[in-house]
């Protein structure tokens, strides 16, 4: 019996908690993959869909300024869209962390929660007898 209890404690507090932490880690890794977070950060200031114009030969200030303005717009659009997705990514990661930590705590305190539940249940039954 002692051996069985020790095994249960080992499983509950070491093996299973390790598994919960792995799942949280996997969800965060998945978020990085799903939102291509690394690529978004690296290309945050890159033009949208690589749409850039290059100046033609010869110097024409008006044309030059036009091209610079056009490319700037492409960069700004790219930045906004990628930033929006990065914000969603951070939101997702925050939810994963909150839910993950709650699940972790719930599991850690499960034996106590079960005991409290039974105790409260008994109390409720007898209060209404």
């Amino acid at each position, binding site marked *: 019996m002692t051996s069985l209890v020790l095994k249960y404690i080992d499983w509950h507090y070491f093996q299973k908690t390790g598994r919960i932490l*792995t799942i949280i880690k996997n969800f965060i890794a998945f978020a990085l993959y799903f*939102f291509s977070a690394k690529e978004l950060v690296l*290309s945050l200031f890159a033009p949208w869909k690589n749409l850039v114009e290059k100046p033609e030969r010869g110097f024409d200030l008006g044309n030059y300024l036009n091209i610079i303005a056009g490319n700037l717009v492409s960069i700004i659009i790219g930045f906004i869209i990628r930033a929006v997705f990065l914000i969603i990514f951070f939101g997702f990661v925050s939810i994963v962390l909150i839910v993950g930590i709650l699940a972790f705590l719930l599991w850690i305190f499960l034996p106590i929660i079960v005991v409290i539940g039974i105790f*409260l249940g008994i109390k409720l039954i007898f209060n209404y007898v």
Partner: protein
Amino acid sequence: MFNLKQAEISLALKTEKNFKALFVLRKILVFIVIILTLLWLYNSIPLISKNLDFNNFEPLYVLLVILQALIISAISQTGGFLLIALSLNFWLKSLNDFFENGLKNPQLKINLATASQDPNSNLADYLNFNSAKYLSSSFKLAEKLKLGAPSSTILLYNFLDEKNPKIIFLFSRLSIDIVEFKKLLKEILSNPNIEPTENFGNIIFEATQSAIKRGSERIKEGDILSVLADIEPNFKKILTDLEIGRSDVENVSWWIESANNRLKSNQAFGSYENLIKSGQVANDLTYGYTITLDKFSIDWTTTVRNRGYEEIIGNSDEIELAEKILSRKGPRNVLLVGEIGSGRKSVIHSLIKKSLYHQSVPEIWNKRFLQLDLVALSSVVSSSEKTEATIAKCLNEAVQAGNVVLIINDFHDFLGAARKAGITDISGILLPYLDDPRLQMICLTTPQGLHKYIEAKPAILNLFEKIEIPEISSEETLLILQNMVFYLEKEYGKFITYEAIKEIVELSGKYISTPYPQKAISLLQDAFTYSSQHGDTNLILPEHIDQILTQKTKIPLGKINSEEKAALLNMETALHKRVISQEEAIKEISSAMRRARSGMKTGKGPMGSFLFLGPTGVGKTETAKALAEIYFGSEDRMVRLDMSEFQRVEDISRLIGSETQNGILTTGVRDNPFSLVLLDEIEKAYPDILNLFLQVLDEGYVNDNFGNKVNFTNTIIIATSNAGYKVILESIKENKPTEEIKKDLLDYVFTNNLFRPELINRFDGVVIFKSLTQTDLQQIAGLQLNKIVSNLKKKKIEFIVTPELKNKIVELGFHPVFGAREMKRVIQDKVENSIAKALLGDKIVPGNKIELNPVNFDVILK
């Protein structure tokens, strides 16, 4: 060391009953929780209707009222019971998990391979739960039977658990009735004189080795059963009757284990592999537009993603090499060279999977694999200038986008040499892009396409890294088929046995010339279609596979049936119906056929190979034709080569093919692998050409001009020659025995350098055809005239062949040098012509009986 009682798994065995009782309790609790929840909700309804203001339906207000009512009704006796039931339920659920994942799978301190070498390690620690359970029952039964350790029969009896899905799978795939088999073992075990015959320790040791070979950390049911397949007499006998063995039991057990592991990993919650299957949402945001390319391309990445996760089998070295090429600096172009059906596209599928799931090098992560559909593009775009401009635009977009791997199928077709409708020469447009390190490209071609078209454009070829895709092994093909089986079974509602799958792999390997795995996959699909059309049973058995392949190839496959047995046993008689005399030759050929068909043939060469030596017109070619008809079903199944046409060294390419033509020999045998190869007048061929046949006769294959192996193991090779026929004629005059004639002839052949000894020695038999006697010739004349008799019989005319007529034909048709060859012409000129004239002149009408005048061949009405 093996001590089950001291193993950690024994705790699970001891407590199984208690935990099972707790699981039953949990099921009851779940039911109670449902009832109490309904009761709690029912009690809340009056409170809700009491507190709710029916004039105000604001959602927040309604929600608050409902919540308040639920809380109030929860603070009651019902609520108390519900809370206790829920708490107990959680606790029992966690105990359930503890038993299933903790106790049943105790953590291992060292791996199985190391433990198997360590005498102090207890191998019982490495048993999975079911194996431990069956072993424990075996020990109990052995103790009851007063045996020191369980015998193989006791072990097998306990492992035959009709409730274990893995055991059911294993035995049903092997087409063994598990219930009947268990009954049989029970009867055997009821014999009180049972003795242990095998060393129990050896069984465990071998099962451990099997698990290690499988790459498993646990010794499972299949590992022990596969050992028992080799030593348990009853199991061994059943398997022998089914013509399978231990390796097959091992294969099926590995099959179920791998399917089980795949299922488990697909269901594992929160695993990274499962999570990333949902794809990516923002990947395209960092790359450029490919508007034109999207219009004229097929997206392989989407196809692969939709097909879900499939195991990668075979060609791992080629996949790894392709990854290296695609990720290196400089030109990153791969040229996949392989026969159609060799798995070139599977290599790309595997690359895509690895790219999707980030299992490859980072340089090919998140790539879009797009096949440029040049045929569709040419059909949509009107002029060739526009086509070229559109292709250039597509290539430009692929470079600019930064995440495209471009695929071109049948690349050789687009390099200008092939003039087909809808084909554009892209070599000029492609060249500058191939040199651009930003473009990643995979092109597919065949060995023929490579040699014929791509090698003619070295500037293009130099920018590619060539990867040859070899044919995958039969073992890998078996795994691919096993993975496909579940889907097909579900689709068609049929069940295929392991023996049938094995038969598919073996027979397709032997009788279909295209490469693995496609030929085996096609045959598997055919088997399901066939069985759904001829569906009197839901089972697909090896005999069904034999039937399908026999239909396809006209090769008599499967177990020798009684009709075929009779044909083989009476082959001499059948051959003699067409060939007169030549008893020795016919006997030798018939024996070789019987050896081949009964599986007695050893060595790698063809089924039979013979050199027929003898004067012309004595029946050498006729014997070959008769054999093709009797054994292969038709004279058409003969690849006939007149070797006098191959007298120059350049003629080798006509035999084995070249860039401009197919090889007469190699293509003939590849198309008809089950056929007779007749090499007429072999002595006239160029000596180097004969060297080619040394390998065919020895190894049973030859490589064609493109390096593809052509298999001759299902052919009969007959070479004929009249070299040294004078020696035969003289020896016969001197009445020498056959053996002496053969010796004289071979001496003559070697002395005059007509054939090299190494060629002669490679034939299964050198058969001497003797000159025909007068009686033989009369019989031949009779045989040939009989054909006319049966033709006239159809017209209701009776033709009487008189001995005088036969004698006249022999007289006119026989020539000492040309043998009976002229006889056919004489019959045509004299007999057939005369009868034809009489028929056309209405001299003969149906119902007549006729004879021919042996002098002038006039028709005589009788």
